């Protein structure tokens, strides 16, 4: 187990640097940040000075090593636009994104598992068909468009929810959170719901197909043949087997939500890292783009590792001696 974790961490660290390099090269290839940074009125000398100060005159590999060295010290450079450390900006914006991502995942679990279970247990009922049709709808609908529709209905037509923004926040451990105030919750509801739709659909489908496959298993029949109550069969024998794949999806889904929040944040003007990233992409604010991507990759790798560990705890067949396949 320890060896497994060490191996995963090593691969993870390697992956982060690989991605950093790729993104660095990619971003390096286009746009001249000097044009954005320096006022057109600046003299040639001033321009040269700035370029030198930022190390932009060095060849690509030198720039990368310089960047690498700084990164190892936790310094990902100053934002070109905001002229403060990129890491600081990202960390300041991150709680808003995490808040909405977690809220969305909570919604997805609370809705997805019961609905999927119901649809799997009664595959031919009208309600199940409705649930499945709905899940296909959630899967198919481009997320940003749902966001627009929701705004149109609840904010514009009905006027019961705000169109965007974060609303009132309350500081917890020095970090502002929306979910602690009613107004903040109101602001969170639409973006979190929109963001969670895809995950709801995913969990519904996974739970349903898991249920249907598991119901065909001999051990379910055997459990019934032993006279166990229906509740016991469904909520212990069935659910425990289904939860294994669902946990994987929930874990990876959380990372996905953080990444996909980019779109939702744009639709609902939610001041998280996703919007910051989009703005940075448009402005070619290299340090922020790279810092953001590295953060996302780290989250992805961390979540992946966590999922593997939880998985092995849930499935006793894997717990002893390596993974199957």
């Amino acid at each position, binding site marked *: 187990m320890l060896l497994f974790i060490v191996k995963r961490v090593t691969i993870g660290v390697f992956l982060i640097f690989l991605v950093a390099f790729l993104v660095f090269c990619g971003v390096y290839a286009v746009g001249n940040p000097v044009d954005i940074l320096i006022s057109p009125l600046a003299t040639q000398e001033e321009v040269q000075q700035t370029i030198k100060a930022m190390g932009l005159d060095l060849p690509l590999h030198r720039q990368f090593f310089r960047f690498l060295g700084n990164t190892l010290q936790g310094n990902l450079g100053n934002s070109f636009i905001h002229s403060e450390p990129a890491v600081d900006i990202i960390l300041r914006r991150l709680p808003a994104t995490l808040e909405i991502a977690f809220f969305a995942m909570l919604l997805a679990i609370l809705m997805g598992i019961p609905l999927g279970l119901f649809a799997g247990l009664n595959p031919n009922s009208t309600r199940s068909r409705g649930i499945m049709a709905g899940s296909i709808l959630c899967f198919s609908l481009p997320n940003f468009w749902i966001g627009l529709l929701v705004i149109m209905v609840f904010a514009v037509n009905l006027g019961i929810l705000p169109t965007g923004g974060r609303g009132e926040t309350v500081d917890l451990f020095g970090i502002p959170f929306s979910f602690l105030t009613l107004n903040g919750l109101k602001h969170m509801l639409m973006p979190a719901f929109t963001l969670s739709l895809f995950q709801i659909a995913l969990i519904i489908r996974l739970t349903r197909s898991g249920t249907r496959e598991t119901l065909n*298993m001999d051990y379910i029949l*055997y459990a019934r043949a*032993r*006279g166990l109550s229906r509740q016991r069969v469904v909520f212990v024998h069935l659910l425990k087997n289904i939860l294994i794949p669902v946990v994987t999806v929930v874990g990876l889904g959380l990372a996905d939500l953080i990444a996909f929040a980019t779109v939702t944040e744009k639709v609902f003007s939610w001041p998280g890292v996703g919007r910051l990233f989009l703005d940075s992409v448009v402005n070619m604010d290299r340090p922020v783009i790279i810092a953001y991507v590295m953060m996302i990759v780290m989250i992805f790798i961390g979540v992946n590792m966590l999922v593997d560990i939880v998985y092995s705890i849930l499935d*006793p067949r894997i717990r002893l001696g390596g993974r199957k396949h």
Partner: protein
Amino acid sequence: MTGNTMENLLEVRNLSTFFDTRKGVLKAVNDVSFDLKKGEILGLVGESGSGKSVTALSIMGLIDPPGYIAEGSAKFAGCELIGMPEEEKRLLRGKRIAMIFQDPMMSLNPVLRIDTHMVESITAHRKTDRKEAVKKAVEVFRKVGIPSPEKRLKDYPHQFSGGMRQRVAIAISLLHNPELIIADEPTTALDVTIQEQILYEIERLSRENNVSLIWVTHDIAVIAGLAHKLCVMYAGKIVERGTTDEVLDNPAHPYTKGLIHSLPEMNTRGKPLQQIPGMSYSPIDLPPGCAFKERCPLADISCEQNPGVTKISENHHVCCFHPLM
């Protein structure tokens, strides 16, 4: 029907279980009748697809849509099982009628420990605390010959060998001292040497506890020395039934004769194994008349009609127009 009705533990009359499939109605069990006395062992023999497992599941009340019991009755200790409310059936299952499945690998839930299986099987029918239940589990484990039961209870199913797992299943079936055990090919998935042990074990336990046994198998050799009575099934119907000795010594149905003669022991060394010519029918859209007629060497025009039951002797009946005497 022979024998005093009062002695019969189980009376199955004209039981028919159908499945609605895309291609038509599959008559998995078609007009099946038999009796079982207390302490008696009944062998239900037939090739795969002949409806023997479905017969067992119909008695257990475990037929799910698209399957349904079209007609007939099954009286267990005087109570009608067909149409009994689900909760009453549940209380019978595992308590008064226990079932052992073919593949012990598949019938135990892989993510639950053995003690969970044991304890839930006990508490499903008897209000006891966990400690008491574990004690009972250890006791039955000893009875079926599982070494160091306290330790093994903490294991997961995949940590048991096939033979041991089947012993677990037998132990579970004995938890509530049932009056009837239905064993669906309990030795088929095991090695030949283990088969013998399990066979012996079940026979001993049923004799010691005066339990009636329905032994479902495709291997007539397995139960030849075990069963008191045999029912031979073909295409959903019982084509021959009688005491084991009479059926094996004087098979009256051409199919039974074919079955017996295709056993390796019955053939002389050096000669090719005897076979029954032709293939088994798909039980969908069975044509009228005897289902075996296409493969039967004795078939003639009369076989286009449904053969009635012919009495060979007091305890030996056959469904054939041309019974072998």
